[in-house]
């Protein structure tokens, strides 16, 4: 009896592993195809690159006008903003691309071919996010890293190994959070179609909350309305804010202790796990609904 149960369990596990392997393979293949297409539109890459350059220029000036980042950050505003911009370069672009992915595949007429050939809606979205991350890495490699070094924003030598690992982890987990979040929002497009405005608002909201446009810690003084203070405190709990904060403190050379970094990392991790579960449920339900309503190939 016992050994029998064990075999069944093992084969179930084996089955799951095989399924997982297959899914990963499909994501890799789909990512590769996305990159092939992305790099065929060379002009678009140039436009992406220009936007990053413009962001860097604008936030350098803007930071200079603001002065100090405030709160207990121990950072000047330029450093604060530039590190935040860097943090978002990958996540923001990948989010935008992912939101458009299904509409793009539907309007090209490619989605029907994909879903009848083993590629699920989920795979399309995840592969789009991964491909965009890789694309951004390649495109920005030659501009972002040199300019951060050039402006003296990041001093890699002063970062301890511990803090370095925490930063890498926090970036990876933030990336997972945005992957799940993008998938969730994008999956709305298979049923409700044009959701550009909503997606844009959510994106802007997350960026503002993470201090993209202005260091929110400046608003924590006693003279600020308690409601605003409350809102800002809540925005600090968002996983992307936690990730941005860890990155800024460590890479920008601000105040931090490993203990506070770890607390933030835990917050980030919990938020991300919740988001992944939620995204799975939503994508699953909406994919089914789109098969009932016949909306998958519409755009």
């Amino acid at each position: 009896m016992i050994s029998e149960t064990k075999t069944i369990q093992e084969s179930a596990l084996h089955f799951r592993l095989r399924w997982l392997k297959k899914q990963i393979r499909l994501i890799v293949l789909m990512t590769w195809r996305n990159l092939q297409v992305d790099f065929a539109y060379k002009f678009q890459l140039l436009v992406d690159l220009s936007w990053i350059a413009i962001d860097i220029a604008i936030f350098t000036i803007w930071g200079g006008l603001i002065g100090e980042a405030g709160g207990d950050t121990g950072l000047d505003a330029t450093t604060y903003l530039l590190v935040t911009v860097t943090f978002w370069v990958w996540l923001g672009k990948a989010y935008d691309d992912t939101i458009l992915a299904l509409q793009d595949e539907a309007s090209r007429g490619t989605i029907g071919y994909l879903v009848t050939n083993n590629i699920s809606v989920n795979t399309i979205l995840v592969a789009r996010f991964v491909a965009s991350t890789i694309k951004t890495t390649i495109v920005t490699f030659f501009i972002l890293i040199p300019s951060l070094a050039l402006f003296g924003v990041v001093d890699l030598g002063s970062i301890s190994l511990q803090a370095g690992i925490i930063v890498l982890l926090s970036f990876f987990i933030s990336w997972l959070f945005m992957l799940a979040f993008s998938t969730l929002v994008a999956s709305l497009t298979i049923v409700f179609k044009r959701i550009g405005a909503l997606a844009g608002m959510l994106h802007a909201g997350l960026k503002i909350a993470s201090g993209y446009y202005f260091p929110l810690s400046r608003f924590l003084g006693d003279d600020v309305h308690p409601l605003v203070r409350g809102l800002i405190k809540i925005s600090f709990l968002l996983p992307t804010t936690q990730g941005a904060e860890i990155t800024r403190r460590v890479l920008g050379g601000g105040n931090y202790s490993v203990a506070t970094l770890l607390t933030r990392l835990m917050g980030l991790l919990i938020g991300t796990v919740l988001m992944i579960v939620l995204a799975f449920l939503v994508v699953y339900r909406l994919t089914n609904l789109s098969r009932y309503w016949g909306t998958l190939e519409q755009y």
Partner: protein
Amino acid sequence: MSKEENAIIARKLSKRFPRKVFPRLEYFDVLRDVSFSIKKGERVALIGSNGSGKTTLLKTMATIYLPDSGDLLINGYDVYKHAEKIASHTTLISPALDFQKKLTLRQTLRFFHSIQAPYGELDIALDFLKRMHMEYLLDKRLESFSEGQKAITRIAIGMMKNPDIFFLDEITTGLDVNRKEDLVDFLKENISSEQTIVMVDHDPLIVERICDSYILLSRGVVVKQGRAKDIGKELAYKYEVMVIMKDRPEFDEIVMLFPDQADDVLIDGHVVYFRAEDEDELYSIIERLRLNRETITKYVVSLVDLSNIYHALKPETINEIRTVEDEKGLPERTPTFDELQEIIRLFGIMIDTKSGVKIPPRKLP
């Protein structure tokens, strides 16, 4: 009959789409209580006028849509539970499916071959392209392809999957006569007797050459099934002659010029359609066209198009269809053959059997 012998079993299958979602969800029915079974290795044609639900049925079987009620078993798998399994053993080829235009034909084939793994066979696609004289395009981007070349590419990708069941939706659309011939030959040679085909095509010759049987759909209801080689027997007409006139003709004028064909004429602006039951009648129409050559720009002879099947069906078949539809309690009624004739005679309009009668956007003669 054992379950394994059936490739597809549909029982009281229904599919509907939302007509509107807001403020209240309202649906319209596209397939109603569709039941049929298709044996393994059988080649079946779905016929019916535009909008009768053929594509919807194919897409439901190919797991793009979920049925709203009824049973649908493909290869013994339930579409509600095992869509993934079904998708990897079936292929849908439809003109609506398209590719990333920035990729070359080779990149596209490789991509699809790798996602179809472990089932696909790249050689099938390459053989097919060779047969269609398209090898030289392998390293060209798809954005430069003609419609015909895209149609071939779609078929190549679908064939490459080497599936148990083919769902072919109007795959010969956009192909010239020679390529159609090559395609039919290739399908006949390369699709084994184990593989099942369910196809939609408007060319009765193609249907007759590829298929064993047909399923006739009308407004989402299966009204008739039979042997493919009997389709011809259901048709009151075999040929259609499309004539483009120099001037917009009046009905009386046509009757004068073509006295023998006055019963079977359809006028649509500058275009006049004649229909012939057999070769003799066809020749007599062509003879008349020759006599009146100064009034016409050009004419095209073709076999009756199955997408307009209700124009061509025999009166008794149409009455039969009406009986089946009445049993299903359909709200609207298909006009009888006599009524159709009367409408055509009076107005010279096209008939859309789905919505009843549709007047094309033009002034009546």
